[in-house]
């Protein structure tokens, strides 16, 4: 028999390394043809950080994304950005790039204010132009940079950011281990087959507070990927150990979901801007998978009326739990 169930999982999760300094640095060079070069040690391992860092530099310097070249994770030339881990790169390296870009921007604005005879506070950079308050002045950014060069001024900035944390009190365990936190709620819908024990995840709704989505499509991709990884954790991933030896040390035997196992997913981006983040952004990498297994396990409990505490929820465990519950209720009736 197939039984339907719904479950919810909630989480909050610290962004950055726990109770430890984890700074990131960046250099930004604004060239006289309007090109921006960003140097950051941030390794893009597929999560899209180079795109996000380019967007932050482009936004700060008022140029199009196509004008930004990111040189990332090359230890020969890039400053340390720490690890691509702890859901930290958008928040921490994003800030480093923003600060570096702001330094380069200040040089351009100072020159533009002098040239146009405007107070620097009212000058900004947007769409490749110098703006005065809400109006474009018609002066191109690259002409101002050229003017800087003619005077021997480089439009170059460096920046770094380290989230404010404290060590944890060794006696109480208390402190402020993270500068900011991500929050998420996911709801899973499952169909449980009481005979085959197969749990089919039908749908997942995943709402994530990311501060501000610098790249919404990228955030959705991270959320969907995280849900799939969390689903593997809930239903498939199992290390079989026999006398200290792992018996399934290959992807042919240690199973994760395939494209055919993926449920319908509905990512919901919640934007509650983080004051200390670049343009309000936080992180989403790990949070995307944290609540998924809990939501699925709760949905299974809802479907079957039986709560399991041991992941993964394999068909064998489901069938055994249903059988045990049936035997128990029979004993209860007889006794």
């Amino acid at each position, binding site marked *: 028999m197939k039984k339907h169930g719904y479950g919810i999982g909630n989480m909050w999760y610290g962004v950055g390394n726990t109770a430890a300094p984890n700074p990131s640095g960046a250099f930004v060079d604004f060239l006289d043809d309007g090109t921006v070069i960003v140097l950051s040690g941030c390794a893009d391992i597929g999560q899209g950080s180079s795109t996000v860092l380019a967007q932050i530099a482009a936004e700060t310097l008022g140029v199009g994304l196509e004008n930004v070249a990111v040189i990332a994770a090359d230890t020969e030339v890039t400053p340390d950005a720490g690890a691509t881990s702890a859901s930290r790169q958008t928040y921490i390296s994003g800030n480093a790039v923003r600060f570096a870009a702001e330094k380069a921007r200040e040089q351009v604005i100072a020159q533009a204010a002098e040239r146009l005879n405007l107070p620097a506070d009212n000058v900004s950079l947007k769409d490749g132009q110098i703006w005065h308050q809400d109006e474009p002045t018609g002066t191109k950014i690259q002409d101002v940079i050229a003017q800087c060069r003619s005077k021997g001024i480089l439009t170059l900035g460096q920046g770094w950011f380290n989230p404010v944390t404290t060590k944890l009190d060794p006696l109480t365990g208390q402190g402020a281990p993270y500068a900011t936190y991500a929050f998420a709620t996911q709801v899973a819908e499952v169909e449980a*087959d*009481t*005979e*085959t*024990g*197969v749990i089919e995840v039908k749908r997942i709704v995943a709402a994530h507070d990311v501060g501000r989505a610098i790249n919404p499509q990228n955030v959705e991709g991270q959320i969907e990927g995280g849900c799939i990884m969390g689903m593997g954790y809930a239903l*498939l991933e199992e290390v079989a150990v026999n006398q200290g030896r792992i018996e399934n040390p290959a992807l*042919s035997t240690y*199973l994760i*979901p*395939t*494209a*055919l*196992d993926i449920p319908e997913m509905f990512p919901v981006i919640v934007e509650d801007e983080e004051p200390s983040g670049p343009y309000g952004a936080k992180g989403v990498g790990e949070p995307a998978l944290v609540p998924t297994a809990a939501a699925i396990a709760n949905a299974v409990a809802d479907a079957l009326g039986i709560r399991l505490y041991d992941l993964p929820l*394999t*068909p*064998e465990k489901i*069938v*055994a739990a249903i*059988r045990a519950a049936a035997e128990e209720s029979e004993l209860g009736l007889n006794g």
Partner: protein
Amino acid sequence: MFELDAYYQPESLAVALELLAKSDGKLRPLAGGTDLVPALAKRKIHCPGLIDLSAVSELRAIIAREHEIQIGSMSTFAQIEEFLVIRNRFPLLSEAAASVGSPQIRNTGTIGGNIANASPAADMVTALIALEAEVRLDSSEGFRTVPLQNILEGAGKTHIRPQEIITNILIRPLAPGSRSGYIKLGRRRALAIARLNLAVILAVHENKISLARVALGAVGPNPCRSSALETTLEGQQISSTLVDTFASEAEKEVVRMLGSRPSVSYKQEAVKGIARELLPRLFSSTEGVVA
């Protein structure tokens, strides 16, 4: 990886058979290699040399005749899945082919290799056993045609002689109006080894089952027919009660077949679930009906 003393890629069956006859058991035929090559690489199998059959085009033909369909042993799962005559006349066979591994494996693995590998969980074999398929084995001395179930001798074992190559699989057509289907239970929806598989063929006249063939896989050394389950269906009216009866008989049959194996407690329950999925599909719809 692994080293071989000899590797041949003949372009005709005659040359392949001659090489095999002369090799004194030292050469093994290589079909798609999706099972054999990983086994060689992991040193689970040792063999001094291979005769790669991939260039023997005469083994790739699928020929539909009125009284039988002849499937060349080197036909891939993908070819079988997509071959229109098979889809129309033996839907369970294309369903079984579609359930194998991944697109990459289905483009490489072959029906002959699936038989020769003799896995207890072989997807195609369960369907072919239900179809009462025959296997043609050729050697340089001649050929013989044997019912598939007679050449399976246990997990990973067959009665194929060292100098023989599976050349064709022969299937007689089902009576018009027959319905057939295949279902597989794996740990996930692709790239999974069958925990159980079930193939059912029914001939139904006026809602009454006149003939039933049922084969089960991954419940013993090789997939096999279940006369008990066939008897449960034959002569009965199609109904939801019959689905329940079949499911509980399938449970008994799995217990009988698996004996004291540890997987029995799960599989005796699981077989009911796959039976409840497959049988109503065959009972109710026109899906899987032979044209």
